[in-house]
């Protein structure tokens, strides 16, 4: 319904790839077999239509060029690049099962891949792993309007699923900027958070059932649409957020709330971070159950988003363009008059108490989309401004923003922060450091935009930023996951018995370690 479809994830072939070849990525595990042309007929025989299900650059008659394979090998930021020469796109769960069994028997490493919109290098190969793309499994299997759940193939694109449910008057309890490309299976595998989390909670609550293929080819059919099911250990929870290291999700049963019929969006300009916190606690108190999103972004984020795309066209505020902080509040409910009254009282109180400098309230659906694009357009604008280091942290709300200052200061001390950036002093490669995020969930995104991915920037920020997070008892990954990027730093957020247990689970389910190697759960 909301016209917020971002095209940010369409990959441009013109994208010049500046890859971080210097980073200490793990070497190829020599235990894994290397595939050659001779293996192809046997692999191809698995598929009902090998022409469309097997893409490879191997052999005398390759079925694809390396350009065809690039979208599967490179993540959308252009930060991680793999060397895979085989992509498989099974059409059924049975085919997925056969592929995994085939790979497991031969000790061939596999990377399960959804929409490849991940931000931590978890969805692309590192070396020559086979990419198992779920893109060809994209049907809705069953929708039950009364019980309020939908069963789908895991490769369905989030936005397509939401559009399907919109026609039925329901909603996916998950929304994020990448919705036009990301797939529900990938969302579940990474336990994606996003924009509706404040209202509907996490996927650990909203996923009712999963169909998962284990590395040895066994299929776990847990596609039940039950809200309550206390029959032993809840296995599906194991796979939610496991980043494809334990099994491949092929089907998802998701709870689907009734779509709110009345939506309001307001954006405010605020004088300081304390006011952001006051506005948040007022919103929770005064808006109650209709509060569906509370997002914040800083002046540097706003400056960036105003310099690109739709938001560039006009000022948002008469008297708040230069404020240091901005918040976006969304309400969703079933009765517009009721919501308007509540929101009106809330806004009036905010203005009168001086918590906000200025603000605007969307008057129609188009404006709702435009105001959302101020917040949702930030990652896209950052991507256009340069190479982006993304840190996705969970922190107590009151401590949240001080981290942005600390990172700016640290970069500035090392003369890496350009004068044009807020807090900058020199001619360094870092153009801007900004913070935005889901205040309602205590989730801060710190982005660092630089001319290029450079070792000296990374060395200053990592692990410094993780140490800061650990000091505040936060999490080094709120919603992006560990992937390749954060796997080495997991001990900042997990104690060693927890890590041991994760490794035990990995070894039990995937003794050959073929699934998504080098990422998430790694050997000590």
């Amino acid at each position: 319904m909301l016209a917020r479809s971002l095209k940010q994830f369409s990959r441009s072939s013109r994208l010049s790839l500046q890859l971080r070849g210097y980073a200490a990525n793990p070497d190829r595990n020599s235990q894994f077999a290397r595939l050659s042309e001779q293996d192809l007929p046997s692999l191809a025989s698995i598929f009902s239509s090998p022409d469309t299900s097997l893409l490879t650059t191997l052999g005398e008659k390759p079925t694809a060029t390396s350009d065809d394979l690039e979208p599967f090998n490179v993540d959308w930021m252009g930060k991680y690049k793999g060397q895979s020469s085989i992509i498989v796109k099974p059409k059924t769960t049975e085919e997925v099962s056969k592929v995994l069994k085939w790979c497991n028997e031969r000790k061939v490493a596999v990377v399960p891949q959804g929409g490849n919109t991940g931000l931590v290098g978890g969805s692309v190969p590192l070396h020559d792993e086979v990419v198992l793309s779920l893109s060809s499994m994209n049907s809705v299997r069953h929708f039950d309007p009364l019980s309020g759940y939908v069963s789908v193939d895991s490769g369905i694109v989030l936005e397509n699923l939401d559009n399907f449910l919109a026609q039925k008057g329901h909603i996916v309890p998950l929304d994020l900027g990448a919705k036009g490309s990301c797939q529900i299976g990938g969302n579940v595998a990474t336990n994606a958070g996003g924009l509706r989390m404040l209202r509907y909670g996490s996927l650990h609550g909203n996923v009712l059932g999963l169909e998962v293929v284990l590395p040895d080819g066994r299929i776990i059919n847990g596609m039940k649409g039950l809200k309550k099911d206390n029959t032993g250990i809840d296995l599906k929870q194991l796979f939610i957020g496991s980043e494809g290291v334990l099994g491949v999700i092929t089907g998802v049963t998701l709870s689907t709330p009734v779509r709110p019929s009345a939506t309001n969006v307001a954006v405010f300009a605020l004088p300081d971070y304390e006011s952001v916190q006051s506005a948040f606690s007022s919103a929770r108190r005064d808006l109650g159950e209709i509060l569906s999103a509370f997002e914040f972004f800083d002046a540097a984020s706003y400056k960036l988003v105003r310099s690109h795309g739709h938001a560039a066209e006009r000022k948002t505020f008469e008297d708040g363009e230069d404020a240091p902080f901005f918040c976006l509040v969304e309400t969703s409910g079933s009765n517009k008059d009721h919501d308007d009254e509540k929101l009106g009282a809330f806004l009036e109180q905010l203005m009168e108490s001086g918590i906000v400098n200025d603000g605007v309230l969307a008057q129609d659906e188009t404006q709702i989309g435009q105001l959302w694009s101020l917040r949702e357009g930030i990652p896209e604008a950052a991507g256009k401004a340069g190479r982006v280091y993304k840190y996705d942290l969970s922190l107590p709300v009151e401590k949240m923003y001080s981290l942005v200052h600390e990172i700016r200061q640290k970069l500035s001390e090392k003369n890496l922060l350009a004068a044009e950036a807020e807090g900058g002093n020199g001619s360094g490669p870092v153009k801007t450091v900004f913070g935005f995020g889901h205040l309602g969930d205590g989730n801060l995104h710190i982005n660092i935009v630089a001319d290029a991915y450079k070792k000296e920037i990374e060395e200053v920020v990592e692990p410094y930023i993780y140490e800061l997070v650990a000091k505040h008892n936060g999490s080094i990954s709120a919603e992006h996951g560990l992937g390749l990027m954060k796997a080495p730093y997991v001990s900042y957020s997990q104690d060693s018995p927890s890590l041991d247990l994760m490794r035990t689970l990995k070894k039990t389910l995937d003794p050959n370690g073929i699934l998504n190697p080098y990422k998430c759960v790694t050997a000590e």
Partner: protein
Amino acid sequence: MFVSRVNAIRASRKVDINVLVPIKRCIDYAVKVRVSPDGKGVDNTVKHSMNPFDEIAVEEAIRLREKNKSLVDSITAITIGPQKAQDTLRTALAMGADKAIHVQAEHNVEPLQVAKTLKHFIDRDKFELVLMGKQAIDGDENATGQMLAGLLDCGQATFASSLKVADGKATVTREIDGGLETVEGNLPMIVTTDLRLNEPRYASLPNIMKAKKKPIENVKESDLPVDLKNRLETIKVTEPAQRTGGQKVDSVDELVEKLKQNALI
């Protein structure tokens, strides 16, 4: 000194203009319109908001005043519609209109009756400039502005993409097929707005609060000297044909063959 100031004010009053902005509450532009079950209209239970062309007209009126404070004396928004249409008037007031008139009518009123109603208020309150959307996005009739100019026997400039008002004249650039046309005429004048005239502002919180205190005059249908009864009856409303999916072909020859099969070439 005092006398000369009064004279100056009087002199300036002569060129002061009062702007009337007729607006309509329509199904929201971004909402998918569905035919109602009886096939004689559309599902009206969905979200409504101000006709986008009217929003542009409100914005232009406010910009005229912002550019030249002494030029515009008042901006009045007017609508004909159900009780809910007051929300749309409040939006216009929050954007910057000074006052509003709400003519209550439960049914969708036809352009000629709308034009006659507007004429009634123009005769009563004297407006020198009427800024209105070139059409409403629900009926797409593109008729009310032209009819109103005819009834008032005054100039009209439709499809405006730019507007200048000075010395009792309005200069309007119009979007026409394949180019632009600039016309000029004496006030009073009817100007209908096109999409590229401006981009409307957001309603700010301080202005939304101020708008709550601005006056809305309520007029009953029965108090009008105009009969709002429709002359047309809607017989049938149908949805456009569903788009069918495309088809992939492997070669140019196959493409040509398929096109011939379907009698497309």
